[in-house]
């Protein structure tokens, strides 16, 4: 633990001594990470909205008017056994009429119409795995083939559009994440290469007097870690400030959950350490090739 703090201190000192480069690196990292966080925030809110819409992805299975009670029970039994069906509720003709009357705020519809025009129906809630446009279409076709089923309806268009939208959001997220990873590595590579160059003389001396490779590398890894942590925290802070400002005219907007923020920090630190490791390895090897400090 003492060694960890020693290297963190060394990394910090080295960043302080190259204040301009460190400041530029933190600003660049903060900007890149802010853009990534912004996309995550938008995705999070789209996902929340989509989650609410998912609950409405039900199928209405309308039954023929002459279907018997036994057949209804058989159908219920069949449909319940489908793995794609999460829940199923039977709505009789009279219940359907009650719901319509309640929705429309009317009474005495039956008397006015003479007979109930609504069919018996099953309201089917699909399992999550089948909640996409293709899955629902397949389920509807399968149910429609049963004797006694007259029609199956669901929101084909909006479900397809929702699926498409979610697909795009996921793609954009993956792309932004990938670009941000590359950007983090590039920013760190430039900064750390500069730090290594500025401490080249010291590295050569340390190698000659018996420093191990790990000892030479560790302060730079610590510097990379510090830059990433500051950049990530800064981006989260700016995003939160932006969120608080925006929330007043977008009340439905939700901030990223704390687990996401912690995962984000850990991810940035992991990418930062990897980038720092690769850069420092390359820089120290290049120093060796140029004859600085010999063979070790």
């Amino acid at each position, binding site marked *: 633990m*003492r060694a960890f703090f020693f290297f963190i201190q060394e990394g910090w000192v080295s960043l302080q*001594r190259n204040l301009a480069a460190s400041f530029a690196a933190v600003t660049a990292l903060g900007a890149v990470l802010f853009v990534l966080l912004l996309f995550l925030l938008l995705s999070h809110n789209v996902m929340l909205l989509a989650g609410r819409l998912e609950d409405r992805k039900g199928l209405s299975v309308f039954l023929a008017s002459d279907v018997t009670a036994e057949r209804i029970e058989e159908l219920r039994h069949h449909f319940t056994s489908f793995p794609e069906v999460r829940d199923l509720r039977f709505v009789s003709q009279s219940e359907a009429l009650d719901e319509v009357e309640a929705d429309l705020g009317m009474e005495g519809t039956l008397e006015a119409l003479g007979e109930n025009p609504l069919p018996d129906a099953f309201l089917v809630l699909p399992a999550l795995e089948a909640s996409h446009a293709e899955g629902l279409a397949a389920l509807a076709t399968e149910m429609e083939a049963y004797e006694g089923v007259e029609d199956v309806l669901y929101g084909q268009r909006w479900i397809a559009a929702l699926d498409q939208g979610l697909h795009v959001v996921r793609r954009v997220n993956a792309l932004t994440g990938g670009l941000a990873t590359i950007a983090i590595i590039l920013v760190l590579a430039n900064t750390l290469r500069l730090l290594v160059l500025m401490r080249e003389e010291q590295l050569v*001396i340390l190698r000659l*007097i*018996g420093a191990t*490779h790990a000892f030479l590398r560790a302060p730079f890894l610590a510097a990379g870690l510090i830059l990433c942590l500051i950049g990530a925290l800064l981006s989260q802070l700016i995003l939160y400030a932006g969120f608080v400002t925006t929330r007043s005219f977008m009340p439905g907007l939700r901030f990223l959950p704390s687990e996401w923020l912690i995962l984000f920090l850990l991810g940035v630190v992991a990418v930062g350490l990897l980038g720092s490791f690769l850069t420092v390895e390359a820089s120290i090897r290049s120093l060796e090739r140029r004859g600085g400090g*010999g063979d*070790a």
Partner: protein
Amino acid sequence: MICFEEVSKVFPGGTGEAAIADLTLRIEPGEMVFILGQSGAGKSTLLKLITLEQRPTRGRVTVGPFDSETITRRGIPHLRRHCGVVFQDFRLIKDKTIFENVAYCLRMTGTLEKLLITRAVSRVLHRVGIYGKRDRFPHELSGGEQQRAAIGRALIHQPPVLLADEPTGNLDAETGRDVLEVLAQLHLSGTTILVATHDEELARRYATRTLTLRNGRVVEDLFLRPHGTEVF
């Protein structure tokens, strides 16, 4: 003990001439050997072969338990701590005080306890006579003082061997003698010392043995006095 067995070193891309040619040599513990010769004779290369800053093109160098043919990359830092090194241009870290320069060497080996570091560094700085300037930066010291600090740094691991490459090259004659006095005291305490220099007068005064190199070959190997003899 330091052993060279038919060692040659040819630098790639050079003239093809050997900087060290078929050198066979044995240096016993406790010797104070001065390596003499003109510039380009191979003095520095010989020292660099000991620390494996340069690998032999042919032959084998052994330093105590370390063997150039079998040593791994991980083993080289241990070899370099086994041999303290002092350079002509001191090579102190400019932005660290003298105390920090020496202490950094201890930290390098995992000693992070403050009290241990303070004790060890203070002892070494007393020994080389610059304890009073421990909080100064290298540029605030004279050449002689910087060289003493560099010797202190080389001694912090209590190495059995100390290599000095032209340690008086950047110093005036009197300061050079002061630095050599420090090395002579270390020799009396049992440290094996190799000094590369072109100053024959210093060699005659302090060496127990001199090796004269020309074109990478030993042309003279003189034993001047027994090991551990006080010189005046």
